[in-house]
Each structure stands twice: as C-alpha cells, then as structure tokens.
C-alpha cells in the first residue's frame, strides 16, 4: 500500500517552511530584471526612437514652444507598458533605464505615469548673417548654350 508524498509531508511538517516573509524583507529582483522605468531627461535628445519602437505605444511626447527651443515632456505610462526593454535598447543616448524596482501599485492612473521634461535648445543663431550669393555672372550663360 504505497502512499505517495507521505514521507515528504511528514518530513516537511517538522522542517522550516520555505516561505519568504515578504513584508519584512523585500527581496531584490534578480539581475537584469525589467522593472519600473526611470527616465533621464537630460540625456534625451527627443529623437523619438523609443516612441516608434514601443509596441503598446505607452510612450507619449508633448512638445510646446518655449522661447529658446521647445519644452519636451516624455510620459511613460507604466499601465500600458509591457516592460519589453526595447525602448532602453534603442535609445541612442541611454536615457531610458528599466530598474529592478517591481513594486508598482497604484490606485489611480497618475501614479503609474513616469514623466520627464527637458528643453531642447533650438540650434544657436549663426553670429554672421549668411553671405548673399552674387548675382549670376556673364560667363555662366555660354556654359548653358553649348550643353
């Protein structure tokens, strides 16, 4: 009369349970865990690669004209993100980083938004006004006739 698992059951009755006591010590996520997104606005160059490459379209960008360029705010909506880390890989400036932070609990949508704004300076005005090109000289005409 073979009783499966009876030995293990009784043995584990007297051994320490293998439960982590979660609330007291929060275990670190393993290496390379794709958790909460952190956005470094200063590195971003507003190239839009992340928007193009984000499958669920969780990243939105709003640009508004400011006197010395345009104020760009990137908004990562964690509620829509699938944490695939593509944005981090494709960002040329490594501005997006998925941390190991996994406790993302929110009661309203606002807490799930990760925003970063920066001002992208417009290109500086050239010190010298650009040279006007001379009026077309005579020797140009004949070149066109014998083409």
């Amino acid at each position: 009369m073979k009783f499966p698992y009876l030995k293990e059951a009784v043995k584990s009755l007297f051994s320490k349970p293998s439960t982590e006591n979660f609330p007291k010590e929060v275990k670190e996520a393993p290496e390379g865990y794709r958790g909460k997104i952190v956005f470094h606005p200063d590195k971003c160059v507003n190239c839009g690669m992340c928007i193009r490459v984000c499958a669920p379209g969780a990243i939105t960008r709003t640009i508004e004209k400011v006197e010395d360029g345009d104020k760009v705010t990137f908004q990562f909506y964690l509620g829509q993100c699938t944490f695939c880390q593509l944005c981090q890989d494709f960002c040329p400036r490594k501005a997006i980083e998925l941390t190991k932070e996994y406790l993302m609990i929110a009661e309203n949508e606002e807490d799930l938004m990760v925003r970063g704004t920066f001002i992208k300076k417009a290109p500086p005005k050239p010190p010298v006004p650009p040279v006007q090109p001379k009026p077309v000289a005579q020797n140009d005409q004949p070149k066109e006739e014998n083409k």
Partner: protein
Amino acid sequence: MELLKRILYILFYPGLLYCFVGGLVLAGIDRKLLARMQKRVGPPIWQPFYDFFKLLGKETIVPRNAAKRAFLAAPVIGLISLITVSLFIPVFKFSPFSTYADLIVVIYLLTIPAVALIVGGSASGSPYAGVGISREMVAIISYELPMVISLLAIAKKVGLELNNGIMTFSLSQIVEYQAQNGPLFTKLSMIPAFIAMLLVIPCKVGSLPFDIAEAEIEICEGPLVEYSGAPLAIFKLNHAIKMLVMTSLFVTLFLSGSGTGILAVDAILQFILSIVVVFFSITILKAITARLRVEQTLRFYWTYPTALALLSLILVYFGL
C-alpha cells in the same frame, strides 16, 4: 439547581460556546498543520474566526429563483442539530444528556446537517448546486455502509459483556466498557473497525480527498455557490463543528476510558485527542491525496472500509 446546570451545559460546555470556539480552533489547527505539511507558513490558528466575522459583515444576496425560506433556514437548522448532537456525546464518563439519546440516534442526528446542506443547496436553484447535491448524496450513501457496520460491531462487542449478550447502543455503556478494560482500539477485533471509522471521518466532514460536493474548481463550491454573508458564515461554521463532533464521537467510541473525573481536565484531554484524530484522519489525507471522482469514492468506501468493518463484525461474533 439541576435545571441551572443543564442550561449551563447547553449554553457553555458541550453546547453553543464550546462548539463555536472548539470547532473553529480545530479547523484553524487543521489548516495550519496542512500548510506546514506543504512547507508554507500558513494562516494563524484563529484564522477561521476572522473568516466567520468577515462573512458576517458581508451583504447577503438571495437569488431570484431561490425558495427564500428554505434557503435561509437550512444553515440554522444544520447548526442547531449539530450542537444538539455534541450535547449527547459523552466525554469520559461525563455526559450531560446521555439518557436522552444513544448511538443510532446520534448517527441519525448527524444526517440532519448533511440534509440541511442539501436542502439549502437545492433551494438556491443553481445548476451547480444541483450537481453538488447529487454528489453529496452519493457521498452520504458511500460512507453510511462502513460506518453502520463498524458501529454494529462496537454495539455487539460492548453488548456481549455489559448487556448480557444483547447488543447495546448506549454510548455511556460503551464508555463504561472502555473504563473497565481499556480503550476499544486495543482489542484485536476492534482494530479493523477503528481503521474503517478513521477512513469514514474525512468523507463525513467533506475534507479534501472526498470533498467532491464542494469542489471549488469544478462546481464552484457546489451547494454553497449561491450563499454569501451570514448564511455562508453559518455553513462554514457547520463544517468546522462537524469536524469537532465527528472526531469527539470517534474519541468516545475508540479512545475513551475512565478519564480523570474532573470535567475540565477531561474536556481538554478529549479536545487534544480530537486534534490528534483530526491530524491523522483529515489533515494527512488532505496533504497527500487529490480529489476523487464521485463513483471512485463510492467504489472506495464500499470495498476497503466495508471489508474492514465486516471483518471486525465477524471477529466480534467469534467472541475475540
């Protein structure tokens, strides 16, 4: 004075309070032991109290095509009859109302909670409950046979000595017999009945390997599917008290003796023995087996435990 003692018995020791507290504590211990056997921490021992009071706070929804009165009366009837049964079970020579009922009556009173669950489930009008009832009834038929045979064996065994040959169904005589010559399970002819009865308890209580009537996954808690709030709290309480009553009946039948005579010590001893019996009969099975199908339960109960019980009946007739 006698009446006051009787009221005290009814309301406190073997009656309302003891059943409520004892039943829920026993259920808590059972859940804790099960968790420990699965290497997890498991809920605190008084978790069933939390469940009970949370359910009391919930809203009670009565479905539209339920027969309202039967739907709401069923849990209360089950609870009250369970508590009356626990009044009749003697505790080591102390039995407040033992002259009013004996073995057959106790066994039949124990069918009332099962029938209350069935009537409650069928009154809720849900198809899941319908399937749950049919399974519950087949479970009752399956465990009734071995239980009845082992009880007849005990009755004959005790009757041969005390009742000049004719069998006796009186529980106090069974306890007295064990007081004279040791608990029944030490007798050779009683060991098969002991094992058969041990196997009957999980199905009677409806614990895991045989909880086909209240299978959470397949038929969403069977007869209890439409219950919420206070009636559901009472049904969960019934489940716990049934565990307490069945194990203390088992202790009285097989493990009792003269006891220490002081009521409090006897009560605690009986409770501890019930915990041991719960561990061996319900928790171990819950930890290592999966749920059986309905006709497998019937086949199981009508072969192994019935054969064991018949063996002990024959041994008793041979006067062992």
